[in-house]
């Protein structure tokens, strides 16, 4: 897996853990949480974190994808990965406070 993609995925996963948007996704759980799954807090927070991380990837990927289409690149390249990583970092910024709080206890 390319290094750029690993970085993007890693930062998106961090955002899934520490983003303030996690609370909103948990609040919307009655809308998206499947009734078939066990109604446990652990699974709820795991899936909420997964949703936030995936949404981070999706939203931050839009400018990178538009760059790839406009430049006619046949595949992702250094520049598009850089744009994607920049977008993910911007979306992860609000969660830095939570990250620092977790690190310092």
């Amino acid at each position, binding site marked *: 897996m390319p290094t*750029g993609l690993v970085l993007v995925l890693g930062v998106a996963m961090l955002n899934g853990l520490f983003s303030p948007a996690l609370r909103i996704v948990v609040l919307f759980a009655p809308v*998206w949480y499947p009734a078939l799954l066990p109604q446990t807090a652990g699974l709820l927070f795991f899936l909420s974190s997964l949703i936030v991380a995936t949404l981070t990837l999706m939203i931050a990927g839009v400018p990178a*994808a538009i760059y790839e289409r406009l430049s006619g690149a046949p595949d992702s390249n250094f520049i598009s990965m850089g744009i994607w990583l920049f977008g993910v970092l911007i979306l992860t910024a609000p969660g830095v406070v939570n990250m620092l709080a977790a690190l310092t206890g």
Partner: protein
Amino acid sequence: MNEQTIQLLPFWYFHLPNYVLAALMYTLMGRIILGAIAPAGWNNYIMRAFVTVTDPVVSVVRFITPHAIGLPLVLVFGALWLMLLRIALFLAMARYGVAPTVGGGG
């Protein structure tokens, strides 16, 4: 005309697009699940219908998703984008006070 129909009609401008988005979303989920369990190149009529209905959505999502993401994950992204659109539709309607509300108890 029963009571449920009467409740839906005043908010048709919300229910109609919401229904279309929901139908697309669940059809896309069906495509994901069938694609995961069916053999490659399976020419079943249900799979063909799912693919035909969801291909426009997949094309749009493919356009706004980097090449590094393969088709299976593009399908998942498509379902999530449709869910986001439905939530955004409801929030936009609620913002202007025209969203349907849950009826009170009898």
